[in-house]
């Protein structure tokens, strides 16, 4: 799990560069709250607190939750999100290894549904001015969440590209250490690519092209860090492809035709419902490996 935190660092640093210190403050609040709540839960369940904390799973979900939230979100709200993520989505379902739903996504979606107006509060920092070298005209300094594809101002797209590339670098590092199976991120990106190309063929002027879609919003972060949660994803080899491709398709559909910002949260949660069924129907044949 320490590898995952290390791989998150490029993405976090680039996001901080563009969105300011609010991101770091969110992360710190979220991590402290999660650690406190997790140790309380472990103690109440009579489990070994030290072992439960040192596998760093609570810290990883706290970081992922904090990155989905706008900067300077608010102390109490983050704590509410952390409570839902750790207590409800993780411990009430049986603790690490037994949860059905991705804790970070549950926390994020609870906050999205409870405080929808706070999610339109992404403030860019002054570092944007460095990009005038590329002759960009930036109309407004505030925008919707980075999880929301920016249809209005084409110039701000460079920011999401750079952020996504940094997440991609972190993800490639994880893949090279064989910490995550290739099926999950590749399937997710493939799902988005295929769905967006189909939509692009039908209606090319209103939508972004498929390659742009891969770098929009939080696609890369979702592909390498959110979908790849080993507890909630499918475990069979064929099942992983099915799981991630469907998540990609649903994510695209929600982005285009749904009312919420980036469809990652709902897509992942929807596939989490289905992963036990996928596990059952895609059992591999037993043979002797070389």
């Amino acid at each position: 799990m320490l590898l995952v935190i290390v791989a998150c660092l490029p993405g976090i640093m680039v996001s901080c560069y563009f969105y300011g210190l609010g991101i770091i403050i969110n992360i710190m609040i979220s991590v402290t709250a999660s650690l406190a709540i997790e140790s309380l839960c472990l103690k109440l369940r009579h489990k070994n607190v030290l072992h439960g904390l040192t596998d760093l799973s609570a810290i990883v979900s706290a970081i992922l939750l904090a990155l989905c939230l706008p900067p300077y979100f608010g102390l109490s709200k983050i704590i509410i999100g952390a409570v839902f993520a750790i207590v409800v989505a993780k411990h009430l379902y049986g603790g690490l290894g037994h949860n059905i739903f991705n804790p970070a996504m549950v926390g994020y979606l609870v906050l999205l549904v409870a405080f929808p107006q706070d999610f339109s509060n992404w403030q860019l920092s002054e570092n944007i001015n460095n990009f005038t070298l590329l002759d960009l005209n930036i109309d407004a300094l505030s925008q919707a969440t980075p999880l929301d594809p920016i249809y209005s101002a084409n110039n701000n797209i460079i920011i999401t590209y750079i952020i996504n590339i940094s997440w991609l670098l972190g993800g490639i590092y994880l893949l090279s250490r064989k910490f995550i199976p290739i099926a999950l991120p590749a399937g997710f990106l493939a799902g988005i690519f295929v769905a967006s190309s189909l939509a692009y063929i039908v209606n090319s002027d209103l939508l972004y092209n498929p390659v742009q879609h891969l770098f929009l919003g939080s696609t890369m972060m979702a592909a390498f860090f959110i979908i790849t949660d080993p507890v909630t994803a499918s475990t069979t080899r064929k099942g992983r492809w099915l799981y991630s491709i469907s998540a990609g398709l649903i994510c695209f559909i929600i982005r285009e035709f749904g009312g919420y910002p980036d469809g990652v949260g709902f897509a992942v949660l929807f596939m989490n419902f289905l992963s036990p069924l996928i596990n059952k129907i895609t059992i591999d044949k037993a043979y002797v490996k070389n």
Partner: protein
Amino acid sequence: MVQTMSKTSPKICYLDLNIDRIILPLDHNYASTGDLLIKIGDSVYKNQALTKSIKNDNYSISIHSPIDGYISNIDYYPVLNQSSEYKTLAVEIQKAIKDNLIEKIEKSAPVPLIETLDMSHQQLQEKIKQAGIIGLGGAGFPSAQKLVNTKIDKLIINAVECEAPIDVDNCLIQNKAEEIISGIILLKQIYSPNDITIALKSNMLAAKQSLESVINKSSKSIDNLTIKLINNQYPSGYSKSLIKIITNKNINLKQHSSEENIICLNIGTVFAIQQAVYFHQPLIERLVTITGDISQPGNYLLPIGTPIISILKYFNVKLEQVKTKLHSLSIRVGGDFMGVTIFDSQKNNSLEQYYYLNKVGIEKTTQAIHISYKINTVKNHVKPIYNCIRCGLCDQICPINLLPQQLYWHSSNIEDHNKQDLLQQHNIANCIECGLCDSVCPSNIPLAAKFKFTKSKIKLNSNHANRARLAEARNQLQNQRTAIKEQEKYTTSAKIIKSSKKNKKDLLASALKRAQTKKINTNQKSDA
């Protein structure tokens, strides 16, 4: 978990043990031993058969006494590779020196390598059964059963000892290469395979040299014999893995490899077959690697049934003194992965363990004993077991492409039939209990042991189900038979009543007559 192997010399060492007791259990993994030929108090000599193998049953073998002595006890004893609660019937022999000992087994002169075998394969099967030969590679499959199908394309001789620190095949080859080649020629005449491969571990270069020197001396009738060095990766010694490495064929895991015309035999078994055929020598001793923190580690030729406690006494392993806080003693039988720890001084039931060690002995499938003294550091402390976090490492490492995390998930409630079906779907029957998933689990879950238990439970449940079905079928047949009888009774009685309605008097007269004759008969009987 991997323990360092101390260097073992390639020579066969002999334990000057003065063994006073031999314990021979009658229960083996696959083989049954037939009827006992002896009883308590009988005197036995070396190589005498103690049980009789059943004629047409290839799974039945004989066992033999390795020493001269007398039968001191036939009772229930624990067995080496199982828990101490499992007991099976065993024969205990006490040593006795006899003056008028008749050596009934005649050793013939050493035969040259090339000799035609003048027995049919059924006769060879009987010979193997009467010599008590089972697979000496660890599983103990009765070797006679491997001779049923004699149209074989490929014969593989397995000397890939993939588990450290087992070194017995290496030692056997370096010391008995001629006998092994002679045994291979014997098998060649039975199977007539297209080619024969001897598979060695990649670092067994000295063994390869000794085999090649023997082959070069007599290159006439062994032209399709190749020696192949296999990469030392666990579990390449598993027969289906080895077959895949050598021939690249995927054997269906439910079948035996003979259905694809490939036979895989351990090299120790080949040696035992050769000794049985040429010298009429039954299987009474085998090589065991004894390593660890002892004075002379090596490969020792031990009689089968040697009590473990005698071996420990020979190596001055003191079981009583090690209950200190600093050191702990652990004795492991078998390799690193599939071995069983039979004594662990960190556990608190030392009296029970001591009793157990007194009552078990070397079996035909024992390969190694590892005795290690460990300093009680945090690292060597018994690790606690945590919950499965579904990381998927066990899934990546399984050599049979199974999903151990799913098997573990579903094996929590065995009594549920849905779970049993799920487990069957996940192919739990194909698990070879190699222990690789155990070694990578970050939560220290004993997966292989759990699967072993689950498999035996499923087998037990299916046995119950089969017996229940048979009982139900029998009950139905019984019901049918009673119904038919009732029917007949009813019809005959109806007939009688019908006819009686017509001529009642006649019936009465005939009944009276019958009673009278009966009375006369009884009077006659009582008179006579």
